[in-house]
């Protein structure tokens, strides 16, 4: 078994001139980086970590935008044998106070000893340097050791064992930042090997094109580690550029003959609805062999929209695929077969809702189209269980649990969370689904997580923020997601109880909630509903019942 650093060394020796990454930024020329340049750049950061006295096995927090520095510092931390964790960058709309609070809470659990940041971010990063804090140094990207030939014998990463933790993966928000998924070399490399087989990865011919941020598991694993470690060329654009100009993704695929892309479901709708033909002149999408829909519930309608819009530009049939993935299994759990379109299973809606059985619709009754997330990867076992942990037969809906040789080592420094999630070597996903003919259909969530545009959002974080707004009753807020068909993703709803019955005063409070939550979480709220006393449904133990409130909201306001 090998490690990340061994693979980097091999690439340095065997394919130094092959293009590893092409970085794209709107308004600038593309920057190609060869494997040699990648490792030379990484080595500068590894030497800087030595200079700063950072020890192997310590966590290094990377707070950087898409670009060369993020790329080099990530691999440099690996070459040094330290553990990189990428944290989302502070955006202009997020309040600095809230960002600082989130950073402090991540630091208190993850205990990084260094932060790597850009000079513009120095003040924010330095706010973490308080006495008693584990962070010993803030390394700025303009103060990095000069380039020199890597001396692999002295790089600490070369001494790492496959069982060592190689990186941490956090999801967003206060709750997500407190749960870092710790992954070993062994786990990541097992995943990459198995997943590569499932998609028949060909390093000679494949080109990955991505706009996904690297603090997201799909961005980090499928669209960064997979191409770099498997020696596939990666074309990487900034998420900020893509969201303002989604056609850039298609132009890049055409320009670089891209073959593989991973997208959350909403991006299929976003591209289909927002791209104008005039931006697609001479665009040829025939090189694309798989666009893999992953990280939020998959919808056949989203694929149809995308295919209808882009088949005129050479998009081949069977290109749109699905995957079921989670950071706790490194990435993929199931993957659709690339030689055919994902299986669509039409089931009886009412029988599914009331009896949890996925049966074909009886004549004249409403059906529901379920798109398969594919078949389990060769190294991953899937079981569907009831609330007592008993196995359920095919076509019966239950909780999905997973076991593999690529599971997380732990939630970093969180034995409580690790113990709650892993039982007898099986990871309880908190997702509901069923299997049929070897295909996995994911149908919902046991956990209250909201997934917006592929990003996991914990409702308790949003509720806590809404509670901070003056006029809102303490503890009387509820947040949940409702699926928006046009957007192809969930939209966030917040309901808050207030004293005032005055509509104008209620509107002022609703506005204040919208502003405060957006500013503190960078999550845009679609509906903010201010209601009178006792509207919110609580359980007998006083906890907020999110699903009951969601049903009530849909009944009263959204039908």
């Amino acid at each position: 078994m090998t490690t990340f650093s061994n693979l980097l060394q091999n690439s340095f020796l065997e394919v130094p001139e092959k293009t590893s990454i092409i970085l794209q930024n709107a308004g600038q020329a593309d920057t190609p980086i060869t494997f040699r340049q990648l490792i030379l750049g990484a080595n500068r950061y590894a030497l800087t970590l030595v200079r700063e006295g950072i020890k192997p096995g310590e966590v290094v927090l990377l707070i950087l935008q898409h670009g060369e520095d993020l790329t080099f510092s990530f691999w440099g931390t690996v070459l040094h044998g330290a553990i990189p964790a990428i944290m989302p960058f502070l955006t202009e709309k997020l309040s600095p106070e809230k960002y600082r609070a989130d950073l402090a809470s991540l630091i208190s659990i993850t205990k990084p000893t260094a932060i790597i940041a850009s000079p513009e971010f120095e003040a924010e990063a330095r706010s973490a340097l308080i006495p008693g804090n584990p962070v010993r140094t803030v390394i700025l990207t303009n103060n990095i050791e000069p380039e020199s030939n890597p001396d692999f014998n002295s790089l600490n990463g070369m001494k790492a064992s496959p069982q060592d933790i190689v990186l941490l993966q956090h999801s967003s928000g206060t709750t997500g930042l407190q749960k870092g998924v710790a992954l070993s070399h062994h786990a990541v490399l097992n995943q990459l090997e198995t997943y590569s087989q499932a998609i028949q990865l060909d390093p000679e011919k494949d080109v990955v094109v991505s706009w996904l941020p690297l603090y997201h598991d799909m961005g980090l694993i499928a669209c960064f580690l997979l191409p770099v470690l498997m020696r596939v060329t990666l074309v990487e654009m900034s998420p900020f550029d893509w969201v303002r100009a989604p056609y850039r993704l298609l132009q890049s695929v055409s320009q670089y003959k891209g073959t593989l892309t991973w997208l959350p479901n909403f991006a299929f709708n976003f591209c289909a609805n927002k791209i104008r033909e005039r931006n697609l002149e001479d665009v040829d999408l025939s090189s694309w062999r798989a666009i893999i829909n992953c990280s939020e519930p998959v919808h056949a309608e989203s694929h149809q929209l995308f295919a209808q819009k882009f088949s005129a530009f050479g998009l081949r049939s069977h290109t749109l695929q699905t995957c079921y993935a989670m950071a706790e299994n490194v990435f993929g759990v199931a993957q659709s077969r690339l030689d055919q379109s994902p299986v669509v299973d039409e089931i009886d809606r009412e029988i599914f809702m009331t009896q949890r059985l996925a049966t074909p619709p009886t004549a004249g009754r409403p059906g529901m189209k379920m798109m398969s997330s594919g078949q389990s990867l060769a190294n991953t076992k899937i079981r569907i269980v009831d609330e007592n942990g008993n196995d359920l037969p095919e076509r019966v809906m239950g909780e999905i649990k997973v076991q593999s040789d690529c599971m997380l080592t732990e939630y970093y420094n969180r034995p409580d969370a690790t113990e709650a999630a892993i039982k007898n070597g099986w990871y309880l996903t908190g997702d509901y689904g069923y299997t049929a003919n070897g295909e996995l259909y994911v149908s919902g969530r046991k956990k209250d997580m909201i997934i917006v545009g592929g990003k996991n959002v914990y409702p308790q974080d949003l509720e806590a923020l809404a509670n901070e707004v003056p006029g809102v009753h303490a503890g009387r807020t509820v947040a949940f997601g409702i699926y928006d068909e046009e957007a192809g993703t969930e939209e966030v709803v917040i309901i808050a109880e207030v004293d005032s019955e005055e509509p104008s005063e209620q509107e002022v409070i609703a506005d204040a909630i919208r502003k405060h939550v957006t500013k503190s979480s960078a999550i845009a709220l679609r509906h903010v509903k201010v209601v009178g006393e006792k509207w919110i449904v609580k359980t007998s133990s006083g906890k907020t019942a999110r699903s009951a409130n969601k049903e009530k909201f849909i009944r009263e306001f959204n039908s």
Partner: protein
Amino acid sequence: MTTETISTLAKFIAEKILKQPNKVITADEALISSGLIDSFSLMDLALFIEDTFNVRIEDTELNAQTFDNLTQLAQLIASRQ
């Protein structure tokens, strides 16, 4: 002209982006830096401006440095008409 542009933009943002038709958006209210218009909706705004005023706003200009309120946006539109 500018006031007309501002009210057309305000109406579009309130109705189509925020889905709160009754919301009053003042001419100097921060739109982007405040998070009122999220990044996914900026594109809708750019496409609306193109269709309504026959003026192109490049995607690289969709940020708070180029415009952050309706007055600035209306000036930008006027300067290109």
